[in-house]
């Protein structure tokens, strides 16, 4: 009796598949099911009531949800672009330094080690309207103001964005810097000989070469964009009056505070789709950029 043996690659992948299936897939299937029920933690029997797409209809017609959704997308777009530009700027500046570059690179990596929740607390402290560093500094410089950084809707959004950018720019800076190190010298020198301005050679040689590195950074970032949840949750908790509510804080409030798990899981699915779309988009960009500079392996 000969049983067909599983191929080796499958055996090697099996542990990964089992763990992910057990810890991620099963809960996700469960949450997909519960998003079609009016499940409430306080009344477990509601798990067996099937309401079809009621939860989805409810969130799709909910203005609060759409505001949070729009704000999340806007927030991510601004944050990612800003991080990319600043990261590029920092990398170019550090790359030009001839002395103490290693130290600078280490400093740039500094924020990567911070826990997102710690970043949240840190900036909650710094932007505190009463004892925060920013207001204290402003007052000591003679401005007689106490800006309500985390209380005013717009300022709070700015503070959160600042914290997010502070935390994540280093990923871009480090990766782009690695790209700058790897750049071949010949084309740049040829361009110089042929009379390109520094801007032209940056635009047509350096930047295309850096693109894959930028997209790796984007892909890595898009994998955990939801880390912003920790920051927002700590800094404002989605307040004041929901003015900094992102998809994730809305979801956790619905799930844990209102205990409406079914509804929260429906929102969870929308947020998962959002993350997945971001990730796939950058993965494809990465593949395309790799092909462009001939690194397809």
């Amino acid at each position, binding site marked *: 009796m000969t049983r067909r043996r599983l*191929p*080796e690659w*499958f055996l*090697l*992948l099996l*542990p*990964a598949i089992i*763990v992910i299936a057990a*810890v*991620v897939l*099963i809960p*996700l299937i*469960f*949450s997909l099911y519960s998003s079609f029920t009016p499940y409430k933690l306080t009344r477990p029997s509601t798990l067996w009531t099937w309401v079809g797409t009621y939860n989805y209809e409810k969130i799709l017609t909910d203005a609060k949800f759409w505001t949070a959704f729009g704000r999340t997308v806007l927030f991510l777009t601004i944050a990612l672009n800003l991080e990319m530009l600043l990261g590029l*700027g920092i990398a170019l500046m550090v790359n030009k330094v001839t002395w103490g570059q290693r130290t*600078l690179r*280490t400093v*740039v*990596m500094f*924020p990567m*080690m*911070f*826990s*997102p929740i*710690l970043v949240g607390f*840190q900036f909650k*402290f*710094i932007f505190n309207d009463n*004892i925060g*560093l920013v207001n204290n500094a402003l007052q*000591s410089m003679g401005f007689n103001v106490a800006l309500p950084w985390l209380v005013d809707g717009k300022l709070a959004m700015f503070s959160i964005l600042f914290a997010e950018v502070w935390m994540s720019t280093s990923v871009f800076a*480090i990766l782009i*810097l*690695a790209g700058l190190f790897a750049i071949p010298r010949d084309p740049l020198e040829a361009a110089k000989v042929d009379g390109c301005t520094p801007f032209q050679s940056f635009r047509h040689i350096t930047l295309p070469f850096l693109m*894959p*590195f930028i997209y*790796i950074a984007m892909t890595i970032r898009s*994998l955990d*964009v*939801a*880390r912003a*949840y*920790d920051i927002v949750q700590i800094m404002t908790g989605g307040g004041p009056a929901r003015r900094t509510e992102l998809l994730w804080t809305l*979801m*956790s409030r619905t*799930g*844990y505070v209102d205990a409406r*798990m079914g509804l*929260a899981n429906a929102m*969870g*699915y929308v*947020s*998962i789709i959002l*993350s997945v779309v*971001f*990730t*796939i988009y950058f*993965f494809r960009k990465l593949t395309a950029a790799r092909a462009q500079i001939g*690194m397809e*392996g």
Partner: protein
Amino acid sequence: MDRNQSYRNHKRLMKALHFSGLFITMAIICIPGLWIVLNSFRPTVEIMAKPPVWIPTFTLDHYRAMFGGAGEGGVPVFSYFRNSMIVSVVSTAIAILIGMSGGYAFARYKFKGKNGYFVGLMLFRAVPGVALSLPLFIVFARVGIIDTHIGLILAYVAMNVPFTVWLTDGFFRQIPKELHEAAEIDGCTRWQAFWQVEFPVAKSGVASAAIFAFLTSWNEFALASQLTRSVGSKTMPVGLLDFTAEFTINWGGMCALAVLMIVPALILTFLVQKHLIAGLTFGGVKG
């Protein structure tokens, strides 16, 4: 003014701009972290002082209170630190083993739908922790592993495996196939060839993957805040919340715990800095 002069002026200006830009950037990166460290050594009265006190006085009160145990308004820091360590180290070790075998499969074998498997695996990493924490909480509660180390370790292993696979795949691909083929001709089994020939070469890549896994587990909050309840399993990021009360926050104490949280991460990152960058770029660009 001749052209030489103006050229020199231009160059000097660029240099000044470059320097000041760099200085401001570094200041923005450093000050928030230093502010936390500084405040962990200042008495609460001074932190709260209005108008602000700019010349700091030095005290170890917050550290004393923090290490003083749960009795005197302190936070059980040792337990949190231990939990964090156990959970991060064990989950990193398991994730590396599983991820390495997965990465090896992707790097060395050809099979149908490889790219599909790969992207599929990465997508599981993209599931937001908050979205996962809702159902995971319910499932873990049913199984009865809420508030245990095992539950948290399991969750982190699953979270770290995809990224580990990505990084190690990139590194194994760097190693020429001939290496293990030669070893096999010399009489090694594939298993031996891997551990004695390929693994030593890919060690730095594995190290960088390990650092990332460790940092992710060490810093994670969204899942930990739901899956842990008591002193027996709370990790340090969750422990930070102990310093918040309804309307007040014990800033000094929190800063002290924050310092305790940063130091291991800092040391670890400095030790393997070089591998870290190499790991990210090899894994991504050439993978």
